[in-house]
């Protein structure tokens, strides 16, 4: 049976408490790296091949790549 509004409000309060304590909630994706429940405007939510990442973890992954493999477009240098 569908939820009554009172049942819905109770379920929402429970889910919100879980979100506030960074626990997984049904229907909400979690960050693959840090398991934070993802909320677009709060944590960011970026899709990658092995799932979704919060913005912090996304840029940390990028940082590890850029440490080893910086980005540079080839150019003629003045070498001044």
């Amino acid at each position: 049976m569908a939820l009554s509004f009172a049942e819905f409000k109770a379920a929402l309060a429970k889910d919100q408490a879980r979100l506030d304590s960074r626990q997984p909630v049904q229907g909400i994706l979690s960050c693959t790296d840090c398991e934070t429940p993802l909320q677009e405007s709060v944590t960011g939510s970026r899709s990658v091949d092995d799932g979704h990442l919060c913005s912090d973890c996304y840029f940390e992954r990028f940082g590890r790549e850029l440490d080893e493999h910086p980005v540079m477009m080839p150019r003629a240098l003045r070498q001044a």
Partner: protein
Amino acid sequence: MITYFLGREQVDAYAVDLVNRLLALGEEFPTTWFLLGISGQNMAEVISRHIPDDVLAKLKVVRVACDRTQGEVEWQDPFDDVDLDKPVLLLDSAIHSGHTMLKATRALADIGAKEILTYSLVIKAGSELVPNYFGVIIGDHDRAYFLLNSIPNNRLQKTAPFGVLRVLQETDIGRTFPRTGVPSMDKISFSDLMYEKTSRGSHVYVYEHGKQLCGYVSFERRGGILFIDGLGSDQDYRGRNIGGLLMRWAENWARSHKCDSIELWALEPRIPFYRHMHFVEDGRVMNLGEEVYHLMRRRLLYNVKPEVA
């Protein structure tokens, strides 16, 4: 990019108006509400505070999840007791591309719902679906904050090193350039970057930690595309996410200047990493003999299609 803040009073005012319009429907008032995601649920809770108790007692609720990337609609609650011949309300708090709500309306139609009222507090101007009722239209690159316990600050990094990210200055010329360990990159100087900044209008930022310039990023705006010309950090700062911080700033800059996507040239062996991070190959290849570069692009907003050069 504009950030809109809707305080509790504003959200309540929109909720009151919606309730009045729904009540005015009389017999057509939707007694089953389908709520999209946690944001739709939070919006419904606010709206419900303005509904008379006797009407609220008759409402049924079904929570709906939809993974934007998989595109599948999931009914989180059973609803075999719902009469789908009567009007239903599909509710969200913010619509970006419109794809999720469109999928949900089609899923409802597929199971027999006939009168599907739709509502969102915020919609982006480029949304492919326009709900029957909506509160605020914002630009495709803009964002709206509301019903949040805390509003996230923009941030460069979570932990040290805490330095200063700033624009390249003439006084940086002659200073030690970050040693990335890549021979070709380590031939660059700040003089070269200042030349590009001055002659091409490149945007060059450096990260200064203490007295050391430990990283840099150089990018150009090309219409709706932010092209990252160069980004590197000093080997002494490996593992400290300087590169991630610089990339993060580049993206923030891009969004605030209404760019749709980010591009960079990636060396061929690094393509798997960029594909993993959902960059796509543009198709343009630069073959320099020993080094082959591929132009990679990632869209910044899922509701805005990147322009193609």
